[in-house]
């Protein structure tokens, strides 16, 4: 077990951590989910048939776990529908920007902030494609969707970011 953990940690931990963090944008949640990913990996490594690469498999697990996390959050929010504003704040990006982001330029900060406006599927694609530099095919393999679907989801995610950033820029222009 330790050998498997070592292998995955040495080869993929940084990428895994970055992926999960950018999905949930909270370090504490990220740590919990990364831990869950490793637990799943160690428990099911014996059933990994090698039909995909280890990295693809690992990220597929990570994606499932983060999507599951979002669904649980959503169920909490729906359950408290008439108090949705209160619960909504838990979902919205109320966490302060990480220091690593605040020292970047305004565009990067805006893109980081508005990633939350994307659906989990769009976010997954954008993070895998651009932050993690997976190819379209690799992304399709991880998400178990078609290449065409990746392209469509990517396009919609980028368009959504565009819309929000454009509005932000317009408001900034009006304020001036």
């Amino acid at each position, binding site marked *: 077990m330790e050998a498997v953990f070592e292998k995955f940690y040495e080869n993929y931990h940084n990428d895994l951590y970055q992926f999960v963090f950018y999905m949930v944008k909270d370090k504490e949640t990220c740590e919990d989910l990364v831990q869950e990913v490793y637990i799943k990996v160690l428990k099911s490594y014996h059933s990994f048939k090698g039909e995909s690469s280890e990295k693809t498999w690992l990220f597929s697990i990570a994606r499932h776990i983060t999507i599951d996390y979002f669904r649980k959050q959503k169920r909490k929010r729906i359950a408290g529908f008439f108090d949705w504003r209160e619960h909504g704040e838990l979902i919205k990006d109320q966490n302060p920007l990480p220091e690593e*982001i605040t020292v970047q330029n305004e565009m990067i900060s805006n893109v980081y902030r508005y990633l939350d406006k994307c659906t989990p599927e769009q976010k997954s694609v954008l993070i895998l494609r651009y932050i993690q*530099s997976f190819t379209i095919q690799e992304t399709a393999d991880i998400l178990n969707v078609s290449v*065409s679907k990746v392209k469509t989801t990517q396009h919609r995610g980028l368009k959504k970011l565009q819309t929000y950033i454009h509005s932000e820029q317009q408001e900034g222009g009006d304020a001036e």
Partner: protein
Amino acid sequence: MNRFKYNEDKIKESLKHMPKIKDDLDKDHLYQRISSEVNQPEKSHTKKRFAFAPVMSAVIAAAVLLLLVPLFINDTMVQDNSDRSLDQALDKTISNESSDAGEEAGSSTESNGEAGETVLMTDKSDSHVIQETGDNDMMIHGAVADLQGQYIIPLSLVVSDSVEKEQFYGEIGDHLDEEAWGLSDYMFSDVDVQLDVSNQQAQIDLPEDFSPVKNGSLEVSLFEDLLAAMFLPIQVDHVIFSRPVNLGQIGTVKELPLQPTKNIYKHYQVPESERGFLVQVPIDDQAGFETALSEMKRDEEEFNVSGTIPESADFSVQENGSQLQVDFTNISGDGEILTTMIDAILMTAKSFGYEDVLFSNLPDDNINSYDLSAPVRVPEGVNPITPE
């Protein structure tokens, strides 16, 4: 380079330059936490599920193939065989149907092609309708507009009834390839829905920035029609919004009654698209069914819409309570044309409030698994969408 392309490139560059976030996890500490969890005895149901997952998936897949063909399209996250055991442990909403269901509805019949049920979607490779869902399934009704925002294209997503229906309303868009199919973007990707069917209402949580008023009144009208297409089929005739919504000339509203309208069904397909859809075309409330059928012959090329009844067809209509009889003369066409015609007539009849349609004098009593020797029930859904 146009402005939007420039912005898109800047966004991509920003994503690529997202900084590395410092990982405060200590490797040894992480391993200790993980190993203690892994070494803990698992809860019996989880372990059992995990241990028997590959066998169970094969058994269930075989059962589905033999008995419940519609379940091929019921999974919202259907996975390849290599991921199946893992997915079952990871995600309770994943069912273990065959990976063949990963195809779109229109092509799933090519891979499945099962005999048995004669009125099920997967037996009708050219069909645009779902006659009925299986015992363990439920249908989610979605809707999008055509590219020009002219007509509503109702959609049907069949999923397992073991999961919450509400979660799928926001997810329908993820199963669409709007660009390839010539559709407008699904408008409700970011909404949360809570159904209150007993009170015939739906509560919709819209994002803060949501507004159907983009291009004036046209979008508002579409917005109402989209909601009607999504919720009236489940007897929900009233929606309540989490916050007031600007509906242009109607004003800002917090709730919206949904009005049923009479529609005929024509065929929509943009030239570059591999699939077409039955599209709702509103017709006057006072129009009779013969008028509707006549109107269904008419093409609307400028909107990529074509008639669903051959120009040369003659027909007479008899209404018999909830049953309609449509008697054809001078009707011809290949299987695909006739199937689309039957699909469209059935959906139009449904819109008019009929429950069955008896077709007479068609070239064959069996057209693409429609048994036309008896009245055909109106379909439960139209334009099936297969979750990938």
